[in-house]
């Protein structure tokens, strides 16, 4: 009779192997960048397999070449090193530690759960224990009186894959004669496995090559395989080759050992790619785990005193601010809303049919066009100069007005400054020079009129630090000029009024008005 001993030593051996493997792979990645980069695929095969594939021996084989090629094609898994470092910071680390302590006690040769090799009809079932034994042991050794409590504990450990039923994909524990087995430490979740889909594909592919009656794929696994095959269609050859190589190695193993290994590998995937309907215990909100780990790593960077004094500095500045009363603020939101509700598709139907409601693509063309502008759009120009300049049609019309007033250079200058902000960096310096000559210099082509203060500041900027913001001050001044002077004149001009009334004829505003009125302020009498 084989007892747990042999199994445990096998487990230990695998651990050692895995240790060797990581060093072997480390040195390998130094010599060839390609392998190091693609840790995604190589990292997850059980170690014994990797030896066979020539990683340890250093003799390149066909399979390895194929693997390397496949790895090069795999998206680089740059996250893995950080995750491994983060092992301690994993939010589950504490839980894993506790469970592993219990597992160690369970596996004790003398006082642990009795592990046997059971003879059934034709074959031997190596190193298993029954659910009843496990529950009994738990109640006796872990100070638990309640059987459901013990079952729950067993279920939790099973759901993390520390022990597993030998012929069921659903990881749970029952208090009967079902057989269970311990997972090898190599596959413990505390090793921070983040297996890739490629690994899963190799595993499933391998399963199809093995003795079909015994290890047939479950329905959901077959589905996954089909999906993965579609997804990796171009790489499937490599995946198949890898699976073949692994399965060859497996065949050479002792029959009992193979049984144990197969079941352990299956349990590993049951944890990481659970049966539909089961909870995936290894899944964490990755945003959070990252934030937790970085917090721990970076917090001690500054002393508390420094941090606090920095904060004090900031708060002092803040006290100097003059703030506006909340009632005023609320008022401004209300007026903003009242002004813009006509343009909010949630509140007022759009004048061109909303493409989402009508299945017509007309809308997209309408936004871009400059002709045939509707009254609603023209009305919006009166809200602010910004709104006017944001609409291409409005900008054009305003430009025409300014030309009539002989102050078109203001808008041209402002447009040039805006354009400069999106220029390639290499051209910025030249452009600042050009603009200086065109708008501000002594013999400027189209001189603009700025006050002395912003002129001096701009001059200094252009000479000392010609970046894309060099003209901001001048532009702000010009904008202010346009806003206070030309813009208000524009709104009062016949040109704008004509344009507004001209556009009114084209679309009926009546319909829109009636819809809008519902959300205006309540009648004075009502409040």
């Amino acid at each position, binding site marked *: 009779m084989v007892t747990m001993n042999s199994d445990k030593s096998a487990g230990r051996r695998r651990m050692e192997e895995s240790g060797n493997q990581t060093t072997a792979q480390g040195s390998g990645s130094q010599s060839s960048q390609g392998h190091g980069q693609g840790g995604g695929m190589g990292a997850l095969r059980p170690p014994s397999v990797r030896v066979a594939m020539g990683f340890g021996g250093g003799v390149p084989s066909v399979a390895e070449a194929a693997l390397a090629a496949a790895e090069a094609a795999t998206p680089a898994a740059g996250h893995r090193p950080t995750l491994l470092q983060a092992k301690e910071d994993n939010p589950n680390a504490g839980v894993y530690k506790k469970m592993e302590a219990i597992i160690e006690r369970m596996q004790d040769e003398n006082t642990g759960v009795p592990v046997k090799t059971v003879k059934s009809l034709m074959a031997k079932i190596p190193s298993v224990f029954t659910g009843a034994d496990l529950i009994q042991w738990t109640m006796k050794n872990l100070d638990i009186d309640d059987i459901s409590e013990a079952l729950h504990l067993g279920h939790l450990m099973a759901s993390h894959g520390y022990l597993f039923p030998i012929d069921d994909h659903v990881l749970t524990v029952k208090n009967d004669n079902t057989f269970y087995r311990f997972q090898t430490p190599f596959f413990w979740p505390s090793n921070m496995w983040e297996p890739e889909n490629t690994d899963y594909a190799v595993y499933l592919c391998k399963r199809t090559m093995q003795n079909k009656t015994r290890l047939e794929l479950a329905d959901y696994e077959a589905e996954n395989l089909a999906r993965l095959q579609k997804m990796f269609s171009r790489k499937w050859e490599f995946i198949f080759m890898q699976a073949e190589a692994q399965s060859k190695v497996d065949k050479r193993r002792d029959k009992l050992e193979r049984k144990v290994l197969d079941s352990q590998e299956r349990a590993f995937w049951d944890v990481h790619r659970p049966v539909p309907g089961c909870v995936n215990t290894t899944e964490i909100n990755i945003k959070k785990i990252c934030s937790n780990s970085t917090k721990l790593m970076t917090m001690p960077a500054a002393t508390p005193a420094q941090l606090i004094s920095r904060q004090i500095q900031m708060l002092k500045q803040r006290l100097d601010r003059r703030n506006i009363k909340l009632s005023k603020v609320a008022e401004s939101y209300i007026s903003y809303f009242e002004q813009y509700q006509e343009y909010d598709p*949630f509140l007022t139907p759009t004048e061109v049919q909303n493409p989402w409601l009508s299945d017509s693509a007309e809308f997209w063309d309408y936004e871009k066009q400059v002709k045939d502008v509707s009254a609603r759009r023209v009305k919006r120009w009166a809200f602010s100069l910004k709104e006017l300049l944001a609409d291409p049609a409005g900008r054009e019309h305003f430009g025409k007005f300014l030309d009539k007033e002989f102050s078109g250079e203001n808008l041209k200058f402002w447009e040039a400054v805006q354009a400069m*902000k999106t220029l390639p960096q290499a051209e910025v310096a030249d452009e600042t020079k050009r603009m200086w000559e065109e708008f501000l210099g002594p013999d400027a082509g189209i001189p603009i009129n700025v006050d002395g203060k912003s002129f001096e500041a701009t001059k200094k900027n252009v000479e000392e630090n010609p970046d894309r913001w060099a003209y901001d001050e001048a532009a702000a001044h010009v904008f202010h000029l346009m806003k206070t002077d030309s813009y208000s004149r524009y709104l009062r001009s016949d040109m704008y009024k004509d344009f507004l009334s001209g556009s009114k004829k084209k679309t009926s505003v009546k319909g829109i008005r009636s819809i809008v009125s519902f959300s205006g302020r309540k009648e004075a009498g009502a409040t």
Partner: protein
Amino acid sequence: MPPKDDPETAKLRKELEDLMNKIKDEQKKVADTTFADACASVADAPKVRMITRKNLKGHINKVNSVHYSGDNRHAVSGSLDGKLIIWDTWTGNKIQVIPLRSSWVMSVAFSPSGNFVACGGMDNMCTVYDVNNRDATGAAKITRELMGYEGFLSSCRFVDDNHLITGSGDMKITHWDLEKNAKIMDFEGHNGDVVSMSLAPDSNTYVTGSVDQSCKLWDTRSKDCKQVFFGHTADVNCVCFHPSGQAFGTGSEDKTARLYDLRSDQQVAQYAPPNGNSGFTSCALSSSGRFIMCGSDDNSVHIWDTLKVQHNGQLTGHENRITSISMSQNGMALCSASWDNNVRVWG
């Protein structure tokens, strides 16, 4: 908090506390009324009637982020299956599928011009793709790989085609010049991961939200923080500027959404879900600022009337946590990305 401070630290701490109280007093002085009272005279908003216009299927893993292009029509989504998909949200067609080097994408951004998309995540870098150019394999061409982060990339936004701002898990905010492929500046912006970022409508300022529970306002040209906003009691998962540029909405892990005002330097309204039980992962404001929408981990998008602080409704349909929402610039459609592998377009 450490059990014992040296006298100097204790003194500083005391000073900090005093200052905090002073600021709170100041805020109270300014808060002469509550937001809901001030807006009582406004008529009730009609119920928002949005339904799923398109259910965009194509990702085969959780979708982590979605962002609208400036053309109000195209959107990009990034998923843990290692793909970016550019959608025509109106027809529901995939315009382009971009395979990524790393599948751990956490954030995507469309440039306002629609010429570039940027993405990044736990590969600790930000990759910029040119949508209009293809490489030898037919995928979108990588124009820039921005490296040097010590933490995962949690948010990125284009100021324009040449200028990108990112926030990352190493608490840093980084400005990039894409033309030069160089950092313009980087600095520690928060005491915790920067998780979210929103540009003001005029692109001159932006706000960031962080796991340190605060939000900060920055100028795109300098490293100095302009304003800090406290109030949330857990991670601020999302920030979103009000279209007026004077306020921003937030969605937080602490199961509230809030509206902060820049001029009064404080929180003006707080929106709680009706069941009090849904954390928020994302938020967006309607184009008139009347509605705030928040994607939640209870699988739905909640809508509030911002002015009257009333729950207006919720959009249900997703079958798992919503990770990100994005409102088109004209306020016509809303995109939501979810762990159920789908992106939905609401209108």
